[in-house]
C-alpha cells in the first residue's frame, strides 16, 4: 500500500539555518505515526512545513500523490488534511458552536455537529460559551473536534497533551485510536509526552537536531532503553 503522506529529503529553515535536514517520513492510511524528540528537535516545524505555513527549501511532500507545494494553506483542508496547531488554536472570541461550525464550513452539505458533541460530551454543555471561558482540556477537545468536523483523512496534531491532566490526555489518545480503527484516519502526532504517544502510535520517529535518528514500530521503540535514554530522556 502506498503512503498517504510522503516526505522525501525535506529541508526546512527559518532564514539561512535549516531546522530540518533531509527528513524522510511517510504516513499510511489508518496509521498513527508519532514524531518524538526534545525541544527544538524540529517537530513543530515538520508539521508547519506539511501544512504550508513554512516553505520548504528542498525536498518533496506529497499527499495522496499531490505535491503539497502547489496547495495553498487555505485549500489544504479540501484535500483532506486538518492541522491542530500547538497552543490549540481555538478562536477564543468565538463560541464553542461557532468554532465547530468553522471547521466544517467548506463542506457541502455541512457536517452534523451532533457527532462531534457525541465524541466530546463536555463540549455539548458549553455550546454557547466563548473559547476563552473553556478549560485547557476543553479547548483541546474543541480544537480536535473542529478538525474532525472537516472529515479529514490526515490529522496533524501538535502536542495535544500540553498542559493537560494525564486522565484527559489518556482520553484523547484513546479517541485517536478509536478514530483510526473506525474511520481509517491517519494521524501524524507530535508529542513531548513520549509514553502516552507511544501507547497509541503504530510507529515512532525520533528527531534530533532536525534529523531523523530512527524510525521504528512503537512497541519496539518503547522497549529500546538505549534510544530512550539518549533522545527521549526516560
Amino acid at each position, binding site marked *: 500500500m502506498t503512503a498517504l503522506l510522503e516526505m522525501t529529503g525535506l529541508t526546512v529553515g527559518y532564514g539561512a539555518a535549516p531546522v530540518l535536514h533531509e527528513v524522510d517520513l511517510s504516513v499510511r492510511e489508518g496509521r498513527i505515526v508519532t514524531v518524538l524528540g526534545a525541544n527544538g528537535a524540529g517537530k513543530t516545524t515538520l508539521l508547519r512545513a506539511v501544512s504550508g505555513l513554512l516553505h520548504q527549501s528542498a525536498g518533496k511532500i506529497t499527499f495522496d500523490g499531490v505535491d503539497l507545494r502547489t496547495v495553498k494553506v487555505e485549500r489544504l*483542508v479540501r484535500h483532506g488534511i486538518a492541522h491542530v*496547531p500547538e497552543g490549540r488554536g481555538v*478562536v477564543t472570541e468565538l463560541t464553542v458552536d*461557532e468554532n465547530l461550525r*468553522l471547521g466544517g*464550513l467548506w463542506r457541502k452539505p455541512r457536517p452534523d455537529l451532533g457527532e462531534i458533541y457525541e465524541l466530546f460530551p463536555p463540549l455539548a454543555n458549553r455550546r454557547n460559551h466563548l473559547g476563552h471561558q473553556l478549560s485547557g482540556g476543553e479547548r483541546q477537545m474543541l480544537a480536535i473536534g473542529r478538525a474532525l468536523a472537516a472529515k479529514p483523512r490526515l490529522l496533524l496534531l501538535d502536542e495535544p497533551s500540553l498542559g493537560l491532566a494525564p486522565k484527559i490526555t489518556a482520553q484523547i489518545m484513546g479517541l485517536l485510536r478509536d478514530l483510526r480503527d473506525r474511520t481509517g484516519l491517519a494521524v501524524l502526532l507530535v508529542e513531548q509526552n513520549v509514553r502516552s504517544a507511544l501507547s497509541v502510535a503504530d510507529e515512532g520517529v525520533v528527531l534530533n537536531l532536525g534529523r531523523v535518528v530512527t524510525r521504528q514500530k512503537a512497541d519496539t521503540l518503547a522497549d529500546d532503553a538505549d534510544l530512550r535514554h539518549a533522545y527521549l530522556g526516560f
Partner: protein
Amino acid sequence: MDRFLYLTFDGLSRGAVYSAFALALVLIWRAARIVNFAQGAMAVATAYVAYSVASATGSYWIGFVVAIVGGLVLGAVVERVVMRFVDHSSPLNGVVVALGLVLIIQGVLGMIYGNNFRPAEAPFSRDAFQVGGVALLSRYDLFVFAAVGAVVVLLTLLFTRTSTGLRMRAAAFAPDVSRLLGVPVGGMLTLGWALAAAVGSLAGMLVIPTELGLHPNAMDLLFISAFTAAVLGGLDSPIGAVVGGLVVGLLLAYVSGYLGATVAPMAVLILLVVVLLGRPDGLFSRAKARTA
C-alpha cells in the same frame, strides 16, 4: 423644553449618521487593525459619482444605489491595490498610507469637479413636522433613521447568522488558524473593506445634503465626529460605534443649540481628548481575553 426636544431629535438624527460612519471605521479596525483615515475622502468620491449619475438620469435613487455599489468597489480596490501591501510591523504605516490616500483622492476630485461647493439635493423634505407647535422630525430625518437602522440590522444578521459573517470574524481574530480551517482570509479582508466603504458611502450620502453640499473636503468635519464616536465606543465594538455616534450627535446638537455653533467642533475635540485620557479603550471594549 420645546427647544430641548427639538435639539434632542436633531442630535439623534445627526448622531445616526455618525453612528453609520463610526461603524464603517470599526468594521475596518476589526478586520485589519487600521483606522481608515481615508474613509471620508472615499465617501465623498462616491457621492460625487452618485450625484453625477443622479443628474444624468434624473433619478436620485439610481445615484444612491451607485454610491453604495461604488463604495463596495472602491473599498475592495483600496484594500487589494494599496492596503494589502502596507507593512504592518508598525501601526503608523497604515495610518500614513491612509492619509496619503486622502490627499490623492481630494486632489483628483478637485481636478475633476473643481473645489467649489456643488449643491446636493436631499431626496425628501427637510422641513420638520410640527407636533403641538414644536418642530421635531423631518421626512429626511426619518429616512436617515431608517437607512442607518437597516444597515445596523443587516450587518448584525451578516455577522451573527451567516457563514460568511462567521468566516469574516474568524479571519479577523485568528488569521493563521482560519487559513488552516479553509477560510480564504485575504478574501474576507477585501470583503470587510468593501462593506465598510459602502457603509461610509451611505453615511456620506446622508450627511452631504444636510451640510453645505458637495466638496472634496465635505466629510472632514464629519470624520472627526465619527472618529470620536468610534473611539468613545471602543473601536472594536459595533454597538459602541452606534451608541458613540448618538452621544456625539446629541452633544453637538446641545452645544450648538445652547452655546453656539462655533463652539461645537471644539466640544467634539474636548470629548475626544477626555475619552483618550480617561478611558482610552472606550466605553464598550471588553477586557482583553488571554490568547494562550
